[in-house]
């Protein structure tokens, strides 16, 4: 077949034992341009999105740069971010509005930034930003998204498809390694590929299970219907995963399979550092090998238990119990822990920047949204939250800026990112967190 006669949209329909199975046309080398970075027709490599959560914010008055715009000076408290400064944006002065609701400590701030709304109580979580952007960029990949957390508790995370519960996070890098690079993974750069017949069978079984949904959906209450829809969406995701595994994968020159990992889970700084490093590597490899395009990585719970050995209190307890040093004017141990968190973020971003794809890097086609729960953890303050974005999302988001948006809703950052990806409507968020004006100087 000559290249002229086929396009990426050509689809083959095959019959497997009487059940129709749709097989997408494999990506042939001829579709890539000579740099191996874009499809021959000029479409760029797919864009990706990730969220990165760290608990307990930073030390107020120490992290905000004094000048705005492109040539700002990074304060000492953020010195770990120096190597990635040009591909980073820092947003200061922003807040999450409660509109009279009770401040659910270590929850409402993160909920507001991740979903655009603040609820009255903790069990009322709704669709998060990664789901919204994932609808646009995450289709057709093996994993709809990957969630991971570095403190061993799979409940810590801020990603949700709808109101039927948070997506649980992977706690073990080894388990995630097996999930991504174990059974079902095909190296996209291998010369030969045979679709696995058992994957075909599994796919058709799941389709048949889905077909039975109408009877059950009819008989359940409206709220259970939402949950059942959530369940069947998960079935479809699994079908999608198997479809992907049945396709000959697109060669991705930057894709390499990492070494398997070993776990050392726990809340000590050294353990979290190790776990985070392993998760970061796995996620970066998964992105560069086209296994997913959306990830959600949390350092841990907003009640961060990060601690050093022999220290009686964890990070969260320290934010409330460590006295403010009268000469320094801040809590020294908490400041140090905040700097560790920033160092971890820098490590993730540098990993992304380390994957060369032609003239660019993986970081250039992703946006990582970094957010936290409080502006000042000691006072559970919802004001002056530190917000970060890294990467330009395929050139759509300008980087290297400090944006001082005094008093603005922090959802403005999430909204700007959504606009950069071309998703969403003219506004995002509810009540006072509703925003309709992006940071237009950041949109390319």
């Amino acid at each position, binding site marked *: 077949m000559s290249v002229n006669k086929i396009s990426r949209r050509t689809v083959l329909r095959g019959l*497997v*034992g*009487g*059940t129709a199975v749709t097989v997408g046309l494999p990506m042939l080398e001829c579709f890539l341009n000579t740099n191996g970075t874009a499809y021959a027709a000029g479409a760029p490599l797919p864009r990706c999105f990730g969220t990165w959560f760290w608990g307990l914010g930073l030390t107020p008055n120490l992290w905000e740069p004094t000048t705005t715009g492109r040539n700002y000076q990074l304060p000492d408290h953020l010195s770990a971010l120096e190597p990635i400064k040009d591909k980073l944006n820092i947003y200061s002065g922003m807040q999450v509005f409660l509109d009279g609701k*009770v*401040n659910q*400590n270590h929850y409402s701030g993160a909920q507001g930034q991740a979903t655009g709304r603040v609820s009255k109580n903790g*069990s009322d979580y709704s669709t998060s930003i990664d789901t919204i952007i994932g609808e646009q960029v995450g289709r057709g990949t093996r*994993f709809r*998204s990957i*969630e991971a957390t570095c403190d061993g*508790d*799979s409940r810590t995370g801020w990603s949700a*498809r709808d109101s*039927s*519960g948070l*997506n*649980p996070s992977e706690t073990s890098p080894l*388990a995630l390694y097996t999930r991504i690079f174990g059974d079902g993974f095909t190296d996209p750069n291998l010369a030969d590929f045979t679709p696995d*017949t058992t994957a075909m*069978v*599994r796919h*058709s*079984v*799941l389709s*048949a*299970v889905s077909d039975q949904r109408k009877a*059950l959906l009819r*008989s*359940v*209450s409206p709220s*259970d219907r*939402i*949950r059942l829809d*959530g*369940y069947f*969406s*998960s*079935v479809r995701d*699994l079908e999608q995963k198997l479809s992907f595994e049945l396709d000959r994968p697109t060669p991705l020159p930057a894709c390499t399979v990492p070494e398997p990992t070993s776990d050392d889970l*726990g*809340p000590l700084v050294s353990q979290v550092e190790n776990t985070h490093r392993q998760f970061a590597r796995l996620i970066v490899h998964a992105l560069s090998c086209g296994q997913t395009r959306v990830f959600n990585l949390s350092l841990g719970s907003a009640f961060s*238990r990060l*601690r050093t*050995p*022999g*220290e*009686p*209190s*964890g990070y969260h*307890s*320290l934010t*409330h*119990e*460590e*006295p*403010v040093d009268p000469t320094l004017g801040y809590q020294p141990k908490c400041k140090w822990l905040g700097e560790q968190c920033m160092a971890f973020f820098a490590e993730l971003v540098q990993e992304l920047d380390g994957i060369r794809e032609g003239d660019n890097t993986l970081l250039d086609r992703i946006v990582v949204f970094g957010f936290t729960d409080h502006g000042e953890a*000691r*006072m559970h*303050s919802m004001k002056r939250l530190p917000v970060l974005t890294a990467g330009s999302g395929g050139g759509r988001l300008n980087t290297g800026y400090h944006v001082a948006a005094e008093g603005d809703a922090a959802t403005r950052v999430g909204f700007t990112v959504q606009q950069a990806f071309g998703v969403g409507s003219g506004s995002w968020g509810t009540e006072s967190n509703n925003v309709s004006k992006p940071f237009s100087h950041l949109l390319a």
Partner: protein
Amino acid sequence: MTPHSINRDVRGTHTVAALCAYLVLGASVPNTTAQESALVRLTTAQYEHSVHDIFGKSIKIDGGIVDPGMRENGLLALGSRKLTLSAAALERYESLARQVATQVTDRRHRATLIPCKPQTETAPDPECASQFIDRAGLFLFRRPATNAEVQSYVSMAGSATETLGDFYDGLGAALVGMLVAPDFLFRVERTEPDPSQPDTQRLDAYSRASRLSFFLWNTTPDAELLAAAESGALDSDAGLQQQIDRLLSSRRSADGLRAFFSDMLGFDGFATLSVDASLYPKFTKNVADDAREQTLRTLVQHLLDKNADYRDLFVTRDTFLTPALAAVYGVPLPRSQELGGAVPWVPYRFPEGDPHVGLLTHVSFLSLHSHPGTTSPTLRGKAVRENILCQRVPPPPGDVDFSLVQDASDPAFRTVRQRLTEHRENPTCAACHRMTDPIGLTLEVFDTSGVYRTTENGAPIDTSGTFRRQPYADVVELVPILRNDPAVTSCLVNRAFSYGTARMPSTRELSWLFDTGAELMDTEVTWRDLMRRIARNEDFYTNVFD
């Protein structure tokens, strides 16, 4: 006035009030007729038990929590009515299903689990597949599989056989489909009109069987229970009573008890428990595992084997210990443990005068409700209030300055009690903290790892306090006062009902639950009696969402 007679007066008032409310609402209790089915998600433990009970214990399931669930109003069981299955969880369940199906259809198991042989092993055999799927469907879906369902899975098995070239592999693929179907991973509770009260709904027979089985045994209904559902026996009081008695008298009821108390006491916290090893060297990984088992074993022995009063759990000195735990409790144990050998559980009774009295002095309680490197009277007191007494403690205000608590170097503030003075003296703080701190401060004689101590930073620990205006000097004097508090019993009763039905009781149900608690307190609050009373009540088999 003794607590019981106070209760009688209060109960009388409460019943009158409830009656008024009933009349005010109107003759028909708002049982919704619009809703026919409701979904309750299976827990990982229930999944494992179900698979083992249906296909046999020899089926290996590589463990690990698939999804931790969400705690709502004090119970994970209540959260299971709100949650769906995320993509990651379903992926994991499909992987588990494949593990199970491979084993069920392998040479070793197929002789016993698959009742027929196919005509040839390389081609589909709808007849034989149908027999297996029909039988498996009854147990997996907890009700007879419909013809349409059987047809669908038989056809899945047939197509898979044609692709894979092996009848058993094809059957295994269809079994995977059944194991990921919503009818298996969720408990689908179907309702029908109640013949005795026509405009209300009650669970149909199979849903009753399901609810009863998960309540008492934490597993899927067995063949006898399903047969009772089919024959209509579960619709009559006598038939229901017979099944309840059978389930309660079996050793399996220990599983149900363990699952309930693991939920109520928050033992899912063990998954993320971390106690600083350098500060508490006695608290090894063995201790964490053993601590959980110690409490559960004590509960089983006390409530099932001895059929004793639940309230006495807070004053009993009987428990079980292992060598690792004995080191923490500081007692000698007449048994050693081989490296890598089986864990020896030794029944142990703490002597009179020993401060280790009751559940609150178990390592499980003490370590779960502390910080990794220091104790927290507030957390422990809050755990007692919320988990044992079902009382809600409001969250702290946003702008509190805790820096004084950390400053152990100040000679005026060497013990936690001294550092928490503000909690007691500042009226804004005291309103909530007098609920939690006194209990927790008495438990300060046990550090984070559960080890007993009498001083902190050189200063003696003051363990006195008051509970409900009754003063006490130490733990030994506190626990009988706690034991006699009616809230201990009413909390258990309400939690048991909520756990079994996976919903909060309605206003009307709260009334008879209150009465049940009062009646039990007059005699003995035994586990079997409580389970029986709840499982016999018609309201247990309805889905009224107030």
